[in-house]
């Protein structure tokens, strides 16, 4: 490999030389303009780096960009044995078919309802938990609690839903406890009205702890002297929380909120699919499960792809809009800082 080392950029070479032989005379006569390499020369120079990048680039193109072409199905009466090439083009018929279906609107409504309940009732949980963790004075206890609350993030949805089934489900702990107190045996897992709340509870169990990481970091960034000054001016713990802590983490909270709003059409597919049958499709169908059941289960490819396309377009627009809004508010956003 040694002989293939590309020549150092001129500036670095000079720096290097300067460090080694300090008073050396300028060995290289400085050219008037820096020599520009042609594209071919640059690619040859960077060939090792580019080769290392290639498999990853191929992955992103094949598994993220190529599938977008598959959306032609949304405009076809797609039949798998005919393929894209020979299926009949139907224009926007799939879209109007989907929009005419009450099930589509019910799925849209459920998606928005679940997203909204999660936004309002899950969003504050990691914040509260982070404040609690932050107020634990003992380092050892805080680390222990942190290890415990981060853990569920790594447990898969199938496992989590199974565990909830054991506790809240028909034969689980809660109905038994209620029954032994003479109350009706309430089975939350199959109550359609409670579905958004059940999902929120599960999300909180899984990710509340994980969500504290970013908020704890924001809390650490608040200047200690602000607390000190506030205390000296007579602000008690509650007023310090209100006037120092909350304004201190507000930028992060706003950013997270905006990004959550951008994700509003994507409520957890795995989590909901696993529990859809227990509450029935009227309450348990969301856009993603609608696409799955119509397309892959019922082979209604065109309509499913049409709904998927609508969801993808609106979802992407929301994410882009939310991100732009975050920039507008003066935050780095999620994607811009990447090249620094």
């Amino acid at each position, binding site marked *: 490999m*040694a002989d293939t*080392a590309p020549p*150092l950029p001129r500036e*670095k070479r000079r720096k*290097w030389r300067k460090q080694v032989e300090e008073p050396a005379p300028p060995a290289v006569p400085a050219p008037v303009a820096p020599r520009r390499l042609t594209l071919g020369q640059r690619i040859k*120079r960077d060939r090792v*780096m580019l080769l*290392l990048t290639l*498999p*990853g*680039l191929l*992955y*992103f193109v*094949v*598994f*993220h*960009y190529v*599938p977008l*072409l*598959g959306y032609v199905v949304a405009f076809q009466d797609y039949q798998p044995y005919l393929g894209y090439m020979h299926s009949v083009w139907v224009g926007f018929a799939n879209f109007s078919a989907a929009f005419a279906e009450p099930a589509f609107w019910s799925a849209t409504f459920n998606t928005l309802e679940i997203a909204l309940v999660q936004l309002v009732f899950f969003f504050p949980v990691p914040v509260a*938990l982070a404040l*609690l963790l932050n*107020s*634990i*004075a003992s380092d050892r206890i805080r680390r222990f609690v942190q290890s*415990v*609350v981060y*853990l569920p993030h790594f447990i*898969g*949805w*199938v*496992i989590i839903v199974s*565990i*909830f089934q*054991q506790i809240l489900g028909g*034969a689980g*702990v809660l109905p038994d406890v209620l029954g*032994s107190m003479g109350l009706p045996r309430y089975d939350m897992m199959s109550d359609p009205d409670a579905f958004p709340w059940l999902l929120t509870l599960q999300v909180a169990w899984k990710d509340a702890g994980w969500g504290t*990481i*970013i908020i704890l970091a924001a809390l650490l960034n608040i200047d*200690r*002297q602000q607390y000190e000054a506030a*205390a*000296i001016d007579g602000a008690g*713990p509650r007023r310090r929380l209100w006037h120092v802590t909350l304004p201190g983490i507000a930028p992060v909270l706003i950013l997270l909120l905006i990004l959550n709003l951008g994700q509003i059409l*994507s409520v957890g597919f795995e989590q909901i699919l*696993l529990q859809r049958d227990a509450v029935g499709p009227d309450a348990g169908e969301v856009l993603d499960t609608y*696409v799955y059941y119509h*397309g*892959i289960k019922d082979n209604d490819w065109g309509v*499913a*792809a049409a709904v*998927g396309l609508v969801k*993808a377009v609106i979802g992407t627009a929301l*994410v882009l809009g939310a991100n732009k809004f975050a920039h507008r508010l003066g935050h780095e956003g*999620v*994607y811009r*800082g*990447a*090249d620094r």
Partner: protein
Amino acid sequence: MLTAEKTRAKTRSTVPAPRPAPVRKSDGRPPWMERPTRMGTTAKAVAVVVVVLAVAYPLIGVIGTSFASQTDIIKSSGLVLWPDHPTLDAYRTIFTGGVVTRALFVSVGITVFGTLASLLVTVGMAYGLSRREVTGSRFILMTALFTMLFNAGIIPNFLLVKGLGLYDTYAALVMPTLVSAFNLVVLRSFFMNLPEELYDAAKVDGAGDFRILVRIVLPLSKAVLAVISLFYAVTYWNAFFNSLLYLNDTDKWPLPMVLRTYVLQGQSLNAASAGEVLAPQQAVQMAVLVIAVVPILCVYPFLQRYFTKGVLTGAVKG
């Protein structure tokens, strides 16, 4: 910046008659902070205990129930925290061949190979993009990052996997999630933050780009590589979405699919396994859950201390 003396002087002037509190340096409380009231401390302690129990109780209950015998299960409701008559029947049932054993092999296999493949590709890409002077690196990076903004969706992905001939193969569980843009960003920014002098020195010594990666960059990145491996391994271990979509052959099912069928949908595992032992159905189900959770519980403590760094790099820079 106020010195300690000044702070104390100011405190004295504004707060009437400060109680000569005993000096306790060990609790790390700054001098201006009030001593916590007993009620506040109690409330906090209760809250902490509740949070810890909320996470721990279900997990301990699942583990306990997996060792429970029929009498334990009848006696208690739902979960058995501490079985009085512990038995390994449940584990004997699922390990004497049959569905769960096979699923376990599949899951271990895709986790090991998937993580290795993901790590190789991600490291290569992150390193290749970690130096800005590389031709086209910015364009390639944007191509990768842009995928965080959209998701092609279920139907196109399904048609792609079918079209590539991956349907019903183990590759379908790995390929569609081979590289995570998030992990790529975390790793790349770690590489970029390594001191420039390292690269320069290595180059002067005549090392090529690849040798620098293997000899210098990777040995310095063990911690971040460990975290990223964990992220990938957990994805593959929990793989449910891909197997649901792309696997038709039940013989190829990984653990999460088996969990869904036999634990969530309640089909009897005793019938499905080859063994003769008849353990209580519920204990068997919980034993499957334990097998699915325990690997995570085992690697978790070793990697936990690296999380914050990894996640924050991704969140702030990604």
